[in-house]
C-alpha cells in the first residue's frame, strides 16, 4: 500500500520457509479453488510475499492452504499481500516530464482522450495523469479508467485520500517533473489527510480488471501500465502487451515503467519509440 508498511521478516529472515515447488503447488491450489491464475508471476516475488504472509499470521503451509479453502475473507487478504501495491504520485519525475513534453502535445489533437491506467493500485499514478492533463487544459475532454485486480486498493483509489506525510515526497517529485505551480493546488489538507480535489475525480472510473484473464474493454488514446509487468514472466508480459496493443487506437500511446520495455517482440515493430529511457511508445500500425 501507499503507506509504507515496514514489517520485518523476523522468523523467515534467517531461514527458508517455503520452497519454489511449494509455491507452485500453492499457485495451482489457488487457481483450482478461486480461479485466480498466478502461474505467470515472478516466482521469486511470490516466494517472498508468501513467506511474509506466513510470518504475519504465523502459519504453516498446511494452515495457509486450509485457510485459502475455508475462509474467503482470508483469500482476499492473501491476494492483497502477494501482489505488490507500492506506488507514489509522480514516481519517476523524468517520466512525467517526458509525457508532458512528448505525449500531451500529440494527445491534444484527439477529440476525446481516454486513458487506461492498468494496475493502478491506490490511484496515485492515475491522479498524477489527471493533474498533467488538467495543467494542459485537457482534462475536460479526458476520461481516466483505473483498473486493478485488488478491490481494496481500488476503494482507496476512489476515495483519493492520502496520508499528508506522503505529500511532501510527492510534492518533491512533482517539482522535479518540471511542472509549474504546486501539487497542493490539487488537494486539500485536513488534519493528517490530503484529499484529492473533486474536480480531478469527476472524469475517472475505477474498476476491477485482471490483466491475466480479462480482455479488451474499450479503445484508448493512452495506456499506462507501470511497475506491473516486472512481476510477470516474459510470456505473460507479451500476452499483456498484445492486450494493450489491441486496446489502443491508431497512434495511441503506451507507457511502461522505467525498468519495463517492449523487448524484441513481434509487436514491438508496430510501435515507435517516443522516449527510450522512459519506455514510452506509440502504436504506428
Amino acid at each position, binding site marked *: 500500500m501507499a503507506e*509504507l*508498511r*515496514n*514489517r*520485518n*521478516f523476523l522468523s523467515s*529472515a*534467517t*531461514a*527458508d520457509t517455503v520452497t*519454489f515447488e511449494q509455491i507452485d503447488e500453492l499457485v495451482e491450489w489457488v487457481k483450482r479453488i478461486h480461479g485466480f491464475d498466478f502461474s505467470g508471476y*515472478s*516466482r*521469486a*516475488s511470490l*516466494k*517472498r*510475499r508468501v513467506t511474509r504472509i506466513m510470518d504475519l499470521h504465523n502459519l504453516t503451509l498446511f494452515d495457509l492452504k486450509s485457510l485459502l479453502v475455508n475462509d474467503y475473507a482470508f483469500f482476499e487478504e492473501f491476494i492483497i499481500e502477494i501482489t*505488490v501495491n*507500492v506506488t507514489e504520485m509522480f514516481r519517476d519525475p523524468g517520466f512525467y516530464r517526458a509525457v508532458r513534453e512528448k505525449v500531451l502535445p500529440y494527445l491534444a489533437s484527439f477529440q476525446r482522450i481516454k486513458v487506461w491506467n492498468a494496475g493502478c493500485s491506490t490511484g496515485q499514478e492515475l491522479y498524477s495523469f489527471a493533474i498533467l492533463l488538467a495543467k494542459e487544459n485537457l482534462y475536460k475532454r479526458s476520461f481516466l479508467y483505473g483498473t486493478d485486480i485488488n478491490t481494496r486498493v481500488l476503494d482507496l483509489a476512489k476515495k483519493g485520500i492520502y496520508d499528508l506525510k506522503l505529500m511532501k515526497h510527492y510534492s518533491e517529485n512533482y517539482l522535479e517533473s518540471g511542472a509549474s505551480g504546486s501539487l497542493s493546488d490539487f488537494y486539500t489538507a485536513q488534519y493528517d489527510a490530503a484529499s484529492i480535489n473533486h474536480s480531478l475525480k469527476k472524469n475517472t472510473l475505477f474498476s476491477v480488471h485482471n490483466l491475466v484473464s480479462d480482455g479488451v474493454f474499450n479503445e484508448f488514446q493512452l495506456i499506462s501500465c507501470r*511497475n506491473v*509487468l*516486472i*512481476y510477470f*514472466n*516474459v510470456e505473460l*508480459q507479451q500476452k499483456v502487451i498484445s492486450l494493450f496493443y489491441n486496446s489502443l487506437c491508431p497512434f495511441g500511446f503506451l507507457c511502461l515503467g522505467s*525498468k*519495463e520495455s517492449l523487448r524484441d517482440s513481434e509487436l514491438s515493430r508496430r510501435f515507435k519509440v517516443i522516449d527510450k529511457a522512459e519506455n514510452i511508445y506509440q502504436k504506428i500500425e
Partner: protein
Amino acid sequence: MIKRKIFIKKLNNLNKDIEKRVREAKVLLLGCSAGGFGLVYDLVLGLPEDFPLPVIVIIHRSKKYRSSMEELLDSKSRISVKLAEDKEQIKKGFVYFAPPDYHLLLEPEGFFTLDTSEPVMYCRPSIDVTFQSVADVYQENVIALLFSGANADGADGLAYIQAKKGLVGVQNPEAAEVRTMPDAAIGRCQVDMILSNSEIFSFIGSIATVLNSVKDGKD
C-alpha cells in the same frame, strides 16, 4: 567483542573447507553502504575478464543523483559491468549492480526480477532481500561478502546464506570506514571469514585461481 578469528593468512593456501566451498560456488555477492563504495570500486576494477562467477553488487545509494558508477566501471574494467535489467539472464563475465530504488530478485530459472515493494529497513535495494533471493536459487553455492555500512542491512542475508551452508565473510570492522554493517553481521551469525582489505582482494583473487584451475583441470 569479536571472538571468531578465522583470518585467512595466505590465500594461495586457502583453508581446506573454504577452498572446497569456493570450488562449488556459482555466484559472488557483494554488499555495502556508507564507506564501502571505494572498496567495491577497486575490487571490480581488479576483476579479470574471465572471472569464473557472476557477481552481484548491492549498494545503497540515493536515486536522486543518478550515480554512474557502473558506467564508469564498465569503461575502465576488464569485466563487463552493468545495471541488472528485469528478466535478464544471469551470466558469468558480468558484474550486476542493483538499480537504485528497486529490490533485485533472482528467479529459479536464473533471471533477474526487479521489485518495487516496500523498502526494507529504509533500503531499496535491500542487501538482505537480494542475498536471500539468490540463496533460494543457488542454495549452498553462494559466496557473500559484506563491507562497510551504516546500518544492519545484510546481516539477516548473511545469516540466511549461512543457514543454507553458503560461504559468508565480512570486512574486518576495524578496517571498515563505518563498522555498523560488518558488526551487525558478526553479531547475527558465525561468519566464515573476517577479512582485512588486502585479504578481501586476495580472497577474490583466489576464487578466480581455484575455479579456473578446476576448469582447466577438466578440459
